[in-house]
């Protein structure tokens, strides 16, 4: 503990650099995953796509069960065979996009499907187009649940991103792996605490965002 503190005081620049690298990976991968998952989530909720939805959600769940080390192991040769750089940032981002899909995808799917059919019929009966029903009724009502999925995905990925340091992607995993190799407990603790704090702060901030994007009418309904 004391060692970790001393290291941080001695080399604050390193800590800032690892943290920023870590955040950057998360931002890119979860950003892309969010867009893909919401789009895919909306699409699989469409009429007559129930079977596709089952398959897509099943695949996303399988992805979640692949250990992250194995995932990097699968992706590296794949990148190499495509002529891409087979280690570092790119591989890490693709892996984290895959991990970031399921929570958002599942929540989008569930939230949209759970919108009261009476409300959708009211919209349709008043002459809303399918797109208007989506943007004016389904999505606003689904937003809090979709955001909860994003929050979940980010927290999971902050943990997984620490392991991406092993394939040279940088981030707060760097001091952890360096500590393991050199038996430096202070570095391990520094990285671990950094990851924990980052996850905690991200969770709290996204919690605020979640509340902020929740339609006012739903908040008042909850207060009752």
């Amino acid at each position, binding site marked *: 503990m004391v060692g970790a503190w001393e290291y941080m005081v001695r080399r604050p620049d390193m800590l800032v650099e690892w943290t920023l690298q870590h955040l950057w990976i998360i931002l890119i991968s979860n950003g892309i995953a969010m867009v893909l998952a919401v789009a895919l989530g909306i699409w699989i909720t469409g009429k007559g796509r129930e079977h596709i939805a089952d398959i897509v959600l099943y695949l996303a769940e399988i992805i979640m069960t692949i250990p992250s080390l194995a995932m990097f192991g699968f992706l590296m040769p794949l990148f190499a065979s495509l002529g891409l750089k087979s280690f570092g940032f790119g591989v890490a981002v693709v892996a984290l996009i895959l991990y970031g899909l399921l929570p958002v995808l599942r929540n989008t799917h569930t939230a949209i499907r759970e919108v009261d059919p009476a*409300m959708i019929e009211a919209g*349709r*009966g*008043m*002459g809303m187009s399918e797109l208007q029903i989506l943007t004016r009724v389904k999505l606003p009502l689904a937003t809090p649940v979709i955001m909860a999925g994003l929050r979940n995905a980010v927290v999971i990925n902050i943990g997984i991103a620490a392991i991406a340091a092993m394939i040279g992607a940088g981030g707060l995993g760097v001091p952890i792996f360096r500590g393991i190799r050199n038996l430096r407990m202070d570095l391990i603790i520094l990285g671990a605490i950094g990851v924990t704090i980052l996850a905690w702060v991200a969770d709290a901030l996204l919690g605020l965002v979640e509340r902020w994007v929740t339609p006012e009418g*739903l908040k*008042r309904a909850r207060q009752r």
Partner: protein
Amino acid sequence: MIKLEEVAKVYPDGTEAVKGISFEIQNGEFCVLLGPSGCGKTTTMKMINRLIPITSGKILVDGTDNTKLDVNDLRRGIGYAIQEIGLFPHMTVSENITTVPRLLRWAKGKCRQRAIELLELVGLTPADNFLDKYPAELSGGQRQRVGVARSLGADPPVLLMDEPFGAIDPITRERLQDEFLRIQGEIKKTIAFVTHDINEAIKMGDRIVLIRAGKLVQYDTPAELLSRPKDDFVRDFVGADRALKSLRLMRVKEVMRASPPTVSLEEGLSSVRKQMESVGLKWLMAVDDERFMGWVSWEDLGKGEKVRDIVIPPATTATPNTPLNQALSLMLNSAIGNLGVVDDEERLLGVLTFDCIRNVIVEFQSEGEER
């Protein structure tokens, strides 16, 4: 006007929900689609705004085949009200009410103005207290009023209402029904109203379409339905026996309207027209020295100069002691649908309208339910 011609609905699995129904709803008429649950009444209504596609037959809305219009344009031109759960919880009262006007891209100020007007119409005043509230902050009855206001958003000539007062406690429901009848008296929409509640149907409807197993059994006024049910199903479903029994126990004088609106035979028709407008009726009773001479109807006002020229002599009259069940059948033979009440010397004492009888029946039947 809404006209259904041999309308049928067959689902892909072969279920015949509606088996060739034809009827017409005249402009300004309140038509109730009544029947046991699963009889096809809601399906029939939803084919009017194409929420359910029609299998065969034709539906004309104001003379236009409803499949010829763009489906969203069609729906924006037809008011649609469902139970209070259909309000959008994430939108304010004002946003809910102006859903259709906003789809039609009305200007913001006009939308707000319309929302205020409609809130006042449905009795949510002062409107400022409600405009920016959310559905969660309203009581069930208030939400239902917003639902009605929303269906009137862009002032459509035609309204479809799917058990709009279904999910509400009986006392509030009664009050909403009364208020809606008052509103309908002002706005005179052409209405198709679905319910399985016979009391509601008798109370609200100008005419009732009784549906059973996808077929139209009887299409008549509530009075006809009660006093001349076509078959045993109708008799049982509308509780005609019980209703008529209840009427047998009462006499005309207990429910008649004393001091009806009258005119003298020499009155000029232009002043008669004004008088009708001021009392909001399509008829008046002509008297000559207190004696009942007959009916003056709005439709005939252009056909002469004085009341004398157009008066329709009464086919029949009732006395204060006539039992109500007899009065009801006499009423059905009267040109105007009402019955003059006179004493032994033909002096006018009052008028019996179907509303008088309707109240007795509805009261009696709801008492029966409570027991």
